[in-house]
């Protein structure tokens, strides 16, 4: 029987987040007929702009863009597809507990919070960490090699990684190997005195992770973030219209390249025929066939729900099941009737990235609660006020505050339904300490716990990296051995989401690499 032409594609991409869209666009540009199916009525996934209170728009999950490589943005001609910047090179400002806010960046000005020694040490520290990060960039942007094969490409990739590290020179290489397995607390304690500076630098190592600054491996997560930034062009940016505008541009790029995008089309099952992926079954009951299926859903969802354990070997299922993917970051959205009154902050600085992480001890204490299934009594936050750079997101004169709040464990001991209100109040109280009078200006508030993130964005565990970024879930073993090169044990099924190397953050590399892998293999 002939299938109607309209329902047969070379490739189906599951999920219209940024990785799915990048993947669909790259495949279409490679000459494949591509269908992308998205469960929600609009594309964007966790890079989505939506209304959270009447007239108030916010980037509902990720709220900054700094990891997407410039060559990817150029390759897909996102500017010509409508991507504009509301702000570029945004400053990072650490809000001190008592003192004035500290702009963290080069050159660092000595002042009441920062000694001249600290300022000088910061210069050395940043230069060295950037050299290390730069050495890791090639590792980050490519499909990881496989170990134990005789494939020339795998061997070359491993040699190249070794060479990158060796090329740092004797002293740097020793230092990288010394600090590579350390925790960020010790690293920063060794070099700085200023509590607020250390807090701000340490925050980047634990943002979005299940780690406190004293957890082993946090230097690695910091280097990883810095390498991703180095690959992405380093500067913090805010797209006009929020992160959703990025995905709208990606969708236009994909469509322009010939891909078809269907929204409100949730997938209930990946179809299997003769032990290979054969298409998808939508929740509506519609079957769509394709030679290749790429899933940007997280690995647990892809393998355990959409595909089903019965198509996989037990050992592989065991590894997927053990994948650590429980989110600890919540998202707080406040609709404000005026600009938030952060103490000592110039109105221009309000458009930057604001951190509440006044010391490493503060972060570690915040994490202590999470270890025992409680939310932090004094949470750490990454705050943006997107309306400062992009007034269109709120009614005239009004503002939006968007904050990533840590730590708010997915599996809260008492359950989120009972605790949601209390935690929202606690977050606002925390903010009030840095912005006295903020509470009075709140028109509406929305808190997305990891549980909400799981439900709204269909991410298992509500973990925005689709799996903890840690040594054992990283690079050649990400997300699990047997699926680390986008290929999966099932022929014709590929992973293209943040669960793959190099991970989450609005980066797009997993989507592009998966597309390249498919184009290479089926060529």
């Amino acid at each position, binding site marked *: 029987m002939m299938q109607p032409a309209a329902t047969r594609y070379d490739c189906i991409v599951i999920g219209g987040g940024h990785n799915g869209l990048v993947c669909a666009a790259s495949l279409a540009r490679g000459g494949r007929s591509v269908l992308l199916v998205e469960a929600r009525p609009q594309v964007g996934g966790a890079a989505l702009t939506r209304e959270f209170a009447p007239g108030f728009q916010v980037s509902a999950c990720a709220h900054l863009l700094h990891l997407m490589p410039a060559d990817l943005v150029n390759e897909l001609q996102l500017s010509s597809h409508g991507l504009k910047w509301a702000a570029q090179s945004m400053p990072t400002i650490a809000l001190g507990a008592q003192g004035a806010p500290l702009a963290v960046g080069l050159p660092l000005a000595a002042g009441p919070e920062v000694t001249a020694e600290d300022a000088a040490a910061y210069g050395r520290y940043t230069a060295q960490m950037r050299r290390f990060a730069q050495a890791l960039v090639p590792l980050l942007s490519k499909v990881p090699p496989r170990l134990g094969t005789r494939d020339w490409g795998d061997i070359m990739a491993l040699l190249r990684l070794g060479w990158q590290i060796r090329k740092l020179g004797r002293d740097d290489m020793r230092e990288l190997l010394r600090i590579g397995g350390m925790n960020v607390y010790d690293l920063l304690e060794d070099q700085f005195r200023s509590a607020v500076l250390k807090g701000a630098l340490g925050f980047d190592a634990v943002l979005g992770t299940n780690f406190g600054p004293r957890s082993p491996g946090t230097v690695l997560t910091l280097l990883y973030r810095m390498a991703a930034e180095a690959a992405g062009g380093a500067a913090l940016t805010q797209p006009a219209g929020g992160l959703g505008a990025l995905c709208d541009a990606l969708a236009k790029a994909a469509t322009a390249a010939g891909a078809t995008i269907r929204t409100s089309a949730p997938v209930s099952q990946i179809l299997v025929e003769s*032990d290979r992926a054969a298409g998808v079954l939508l929740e509506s009951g519609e079957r769509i066939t394709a030679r290749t299926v790429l899933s940007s859903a997280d690995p647990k969802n892809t393998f355990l729900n959409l595909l089903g354990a019965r198509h996989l070997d*037990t050992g592989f299922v065991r590894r997927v099941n053990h994948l650590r993917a429980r989110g600890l970051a919540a998202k707080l959205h406040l609709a404000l009737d005026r600009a938030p009154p952060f103490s000592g902050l110039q109105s221009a600085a309000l458009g930057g990235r604001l951190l509440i992480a006044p010391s490493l001890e503060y972060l570690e204490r915040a994490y202590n609660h999470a270890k025992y299934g409680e939310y932090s009594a004094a949470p750490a936050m990454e705050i943006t006020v997107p309306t400062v750079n992009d007034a269109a997101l709120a009614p005239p004169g009004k503002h939006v505050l968007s904050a990533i709040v840590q730590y708010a464990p997915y599996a809260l001991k008492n359950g989120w339904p009972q605790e949601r209100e209390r935690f929202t109040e606690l977050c606002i109280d925390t903010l009030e300490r840095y912005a006295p009078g903020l509470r009075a200006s709140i028109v509406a508030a929305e808190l997305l716990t990891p549980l909400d993130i799981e439900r709204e964005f269909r991410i298992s565990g509500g973990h925005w990296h689709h799996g903890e970024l840690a040594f054992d879930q990283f690079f050649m073993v990400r997300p699990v051995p047997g699926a680390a090169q986008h290929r999966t044990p099932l022929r014709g099924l590929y992973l293209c989401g943040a669960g793959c190397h190099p991970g989450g953050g609005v980066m797009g590399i997993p989507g592009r690499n998966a597309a390249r892998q498919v184009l290479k293999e089926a060529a």
Partner: protein
Amino acid sequence: MSASQPLAPHFQQPLLRTPFHERARALSQVDSFIAWAGYTTVDVFTTVEQEYFAIRNATTLYDITPMVKYRVAGPDAVAYLNRLVTRDLGKLKPDRVAYCVWCDDEGHLLDDGTVFRLGEDEYRLCTAERQIDWLLDSAIGFDVEINEVTEQIAALAMQGPTSCALLKTLGLTGIERLKPFEIGYFSLRGRQLTVSRTGFTGDLGYELWMAPEAALDIWDELMAAGRSRGIRAIGSQALNMARIEAGFIMPHVDFVSAEQTIRTGRDRSPLELGLAWLIDFEKGHFTGRRALLAERQRGPRRQLVGLDVVGNKPAHDALLYNEANGSRQIGAVTSATWSPTCKRNIALAMVDAPYFQIGMTVWADIYLNRELVWERRMSKAHVVERPFFAPERRRVTPPGEF
């Protein structure tokens, strides 16, 4: 308190006693006990020869309570088991038993055992190794419940040509109609007794499954009624001779479970163990299927075969060579015995390609200890079909009146 209960706390008595222990202890003449899966069991009661000949000429009781038993039940039980083992259990009817093997992702053997279909959605899996972790991880995504029931079921293997006649004498009406691998439900002096026509001897025989409380009574009934049929309790050594004649493989002897190997290259696939007939590649996915398909395509590097060794010296642990001069090792013997029934010197051996083909000749390097003087024999051996001994009576229904 029943004698089957440990007398001291478990940490003071690391080996458990089966419900038959009291009787085994009384019958043991040479005090030869060994540990099996956490239980103390008999290796030899009197002499290996006496016990072996009882298997082939009369009837025997062998305590198989230590065999690990799992209850697998639920709406997905058959789907679950079919994903676990390499055989198609969709074809297994209620009250039937199937011999199965199962593998890890790489297609390497984890264990072999039997699956009993006890009801529509209820199965029992009998295994050599404890492996609840693997079984539970295999259950992810299946609506199925798995419990270990080893201690809740006492079991005896009753093997030998007169076994059917003896059970008939005891009033197990219709036992003669039980086909190989069939399960029947009987009562013996008011005690419930489940009987399966299964075993590890390659002979006519049954396995009897009962509540631990009934164990001693049933043992006594069998022993009393079986006197005229030559009944004898046997230990593991006699059974081992019989199972080599039947060509059956033993974990830790002919293969090591892939869960337990440490060195690379020591895992064995069912293809290598000559168990390709147990694999159904068409039934749908099962763990190890993709690896086994690839291996089938490559062709196995080695295979477990039967050897007929020239001479009468069992080739225990012998290395195998392609030439009599011992220049190139091509395998090793895993199990060996003199087969009193076949009057042949037989062995199971893992042999490299291409020497595992039926009809090939290899050389076994046999070491003999003759009053502490070691001698070496390079004996010719022929690769032959298994099993070595397969009497018609093992299959005939109803069995003959021996």
